[in-house]
């Protein structure tokens, strides 16, 4: 098991390097001279040349890549000119908020999705199944940003159950209950699509497993139905659901960009959109690199979980 994990982590290294390469290349494709942009009206040819030398921009591309990579590895992601602060500080602050939002949404979609799938499969063609199937169809068809807006209209404006935006109340907020009341709507809106996808997949996986021989063995033992469903069928179905959970985590992370805009959540997604509109490329670069790397690491964790759940992988 340890050996497999080490191999898996080693296999992630080239992917991580590839990510840095993609991000770096994209950055260097930007038209225009960065030194000129920074100097603005001070950009005399001498000044530009001097700054280029200072920034190392006069060196060949591949050299610049390694210098940049070296800085990244030391935690230096550069400086955001729009915010005038180190990129890494901004990212860590913002990522904290994104993690709370996406993490909650991920938990909701995993638990709710699997639960709905199991109920749907075990009561196939019942009213519960039809209701779930219908909700899933709606869930996967509503764009998350539209769903978020509708939720604001109904639950925040009409019913006044939850605050419409932000992560904490502007005045007197800050506690856990304040955070939770702000979190409910964006987390649900963000989880909707993934919940649908996971519910669908879980239903199909359960139906498939319930046909297998070892289910018949469990029944022949006289196991109660609940045990057959949970201990035997679901335990086996989880193995095929898990990789999709990893995939859906990527979609949740992506959807967070929209949800953060709709609910004014101070996360990385909103930071990225603002940075793009402000042409703050260094910040975009750092944010994309950071989040993509976290996603790679998350997928290693998913693989480790898979290994733990399925003893057959080891051999």
């Amino acid at each position: 098991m340890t050996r497999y994990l080490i191999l898996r982590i080693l296999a992630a290294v080239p992917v991580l390097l590839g990510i840095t390469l993609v991000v770096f290349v994209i950055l260097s494709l930007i038209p225009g001279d960065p030194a000129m942009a920074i100097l603005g009206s001070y950009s005399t040819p001498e000044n530009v040349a001097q700054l280029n030398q200072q920034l190392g921009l006069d060196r060949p591309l591949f050299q610049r890549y390694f210098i940049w990579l070296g800085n990244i590895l030391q935690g230096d992601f550069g400086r955001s000119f729009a915010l005038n602060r180190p990129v890494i500080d901004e990212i860590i602050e913002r990522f904290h908020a994104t993690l709370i939002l996406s993490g909650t949404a991920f938990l909701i979609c995993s638990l709710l999705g699997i639960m709905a799938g199991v109920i749907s499969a075990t009561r196939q063609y019942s009213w519960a199944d039809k209701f779930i199937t219908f909700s899933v169809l709606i869930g996967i068809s509503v764009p998350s940003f539209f769903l978020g807006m509708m939720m604001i209209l109904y639950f925040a404006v009409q019913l006044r159950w939850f605050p419409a935006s932000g992560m904490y109340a502007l005045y007197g907020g800050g506690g856990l209950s304040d955070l939770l009341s702000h979190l409910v709507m964006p987390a649900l809106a963000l989880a909707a699509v993934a919940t649908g996808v996971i519910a669908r997949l879980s239903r199909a996986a359960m139906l498939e497993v319930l046909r297998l021989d070892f289910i018949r063995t469990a029944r022949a033992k006289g196991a109660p139905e609940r045990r057959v469903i949970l201990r035997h069928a679901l335990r086996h179905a989880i193995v095929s659901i898990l990789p999709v959970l990893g995939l859906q985590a990527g979609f949740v992370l992506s959807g967070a960009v929209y949800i953060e805009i709709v609910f004014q959540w101070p996360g990385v997604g909103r930071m990225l959109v603002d940075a793009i509109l402000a042409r703050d490329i260094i910040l975009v670069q750092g944010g994309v690199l950071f989040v993509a790397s976290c996603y790679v690491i998350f997928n290693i964790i998913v693989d480790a979980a898979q290994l733990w759940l399925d003893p057959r992988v080891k051999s």
Partner: protein
Amino acid sequence: MELVTRIIRNRLAAFGAVMLLLILIVSLLTPVFGLTDPNVIDTSNRFMLPFGEGHLLGADHLGRDILSRLLWGTRLSLMVGVAAAIIAATAGSLIGILAGYYGGRLDMILMRSIDVLMAFPYILLALAIVAVLGPSLMNALIAVAIVNIPFFARNVRGATLAIAQSDYIAAAKLSGRNTFSLLLFELMPNLISVIVVAFSTTVGWMILETAGLSFLGLGSQPPQSDLGSMLGEGRAALITHPHTSLIPGIMIFAIVMGINLLGDGIRDALDPRLAKGALRRALPITKIDRDLPLPRTEERGLLSVSGLKTDFQIAGKTTKAIRDVSFHIGRGECLALVGESGSGKSVTALSLTGLVASPPAVITGGKILFEGTDLLSLKFEQMREYRGKRIAYVFQDPNSSLHPLHNICDQLIESIKVHDGSMGRRALEAKAVQLLKDVRIASPERVMKSYPHELSGGMRQRIGIAIALANDPELIIADEPTTALDVTVQAQILHILKRLQRERGLALLFISHDMNVVAQISDRIAVMYAGQIVEAGSTKAVLEKPRHPYTKALLDCLPQLGKGQAMPRAINGSPPLLEDLPDGCAFAPRCSFVTPACQKRPIDVNLIGGRSLRCIRMELDDG
């Protein structure tokens, strides 16, 4: 064509198709509707509500006509989404074909690059691209297309790989065709379906993604506007004038839902398992719907089965898997149920405790008396008291009948635990170890911690037997327990079963197609053909003097040691289809003693000299 009818029959898919078609037609015809210019600003009409004068769907924050903007925006969104899908499909397919066809280093480089692209959460990559190119609808289109390339590349590469390695491509290569014509005329036609399916599953996404980028203000820039930017602009007035966001939002929802419904319909239509009902959930106990009156059964020994009938009902068609099966087993007795595959042996065995998967199975008649109780009259919870506790099973393939993810210890103690919750973990484990010793497993402690995939076939079947023994049942039903094993292992398993049966006075229903195995273990034999027992009697008598032509033929199939001259003879013809059984004797078409009377009416069971027999010829013989 069949596919199309199947999609149409799927009401939801048809609904989706109609909705999409409607949206498509309207957006195609938008220029000829003569709508107001979508960009004409008229501040006197700001935020006019729907059904207002001159503005059917009202007006937005600049007083622009929402209906006109909606239709033009839909048109733009659809065009951009489809264009992105076409670009992604073309580029992705090209990469996939190159990687799959040429393989080697090119394949490795291309696929590793694809892996890197897929390591990004999709929107991050799109954002990075838009960040470089700058916000505009065209750039959003490019970003969305690039993000979706990996999906096509992977699918197409897989399909290409499969085709490129096939024999006919190898033959075409050898015949000296040039690569280009090979790719175009041999490979492409086979890839089209893969590309079309990938296209149909992603085009909805791409419409949504481009709309999403526009919503964020990174796609279409004013005055140009698609559905996403309409929604984005509407958001500013969400609380005061919700109609400006609701209308474009509902349109996006309708488009995506239409695509999803149609896509699901296509996928379902393509999935053969759904058509066959193979994805129906099996009930915990076989459905019972017995014809009345029930047969009057004379109780003989431990288990007396009479007139048992089990049907399979698939897509309105009924297949009679077992037809009027009767037999009995005494305490400590071993009855062998013999027959070819498909003769109904296993269905008979599984019917006893309602383990035949239902749907499609329905038990339609008969009685199963176990110690005086009719098992077929039991509710599920009552049946559970018999399953595994008084009647236990050993299944054919220990490979698939043990749970692959539970260790042996858990699987053993589960059998005890579900019937006796009073035992502690340590007592349970001690009992499990004893069970393993009973089936002659040498190092039970080690095996307890193992998983099935770590053990040999013979070992797994011993565990199957140990599980069956767990609660000291009165009857063990062994369904071809040795078929999946090597011959040497077969002998060991048989030996273990025989010994346990003798030592514990177990009744054993032993199911097999192998006469040699049956001869070793059973006291009595019942021979099944096409869902009926055609002959039953003591093992010795039946093997020495078979009376039914089928039994005789079955025995003639066996090569016999020491009788070199007699060649084994195969039975003419093949077993009948259960969906289409003849009125008379089911064996008649293959029987060498057939008479016209055989095929006229169903043959009844007769008792002759301690033997039960379903044959008229024998009646005449001994009459």
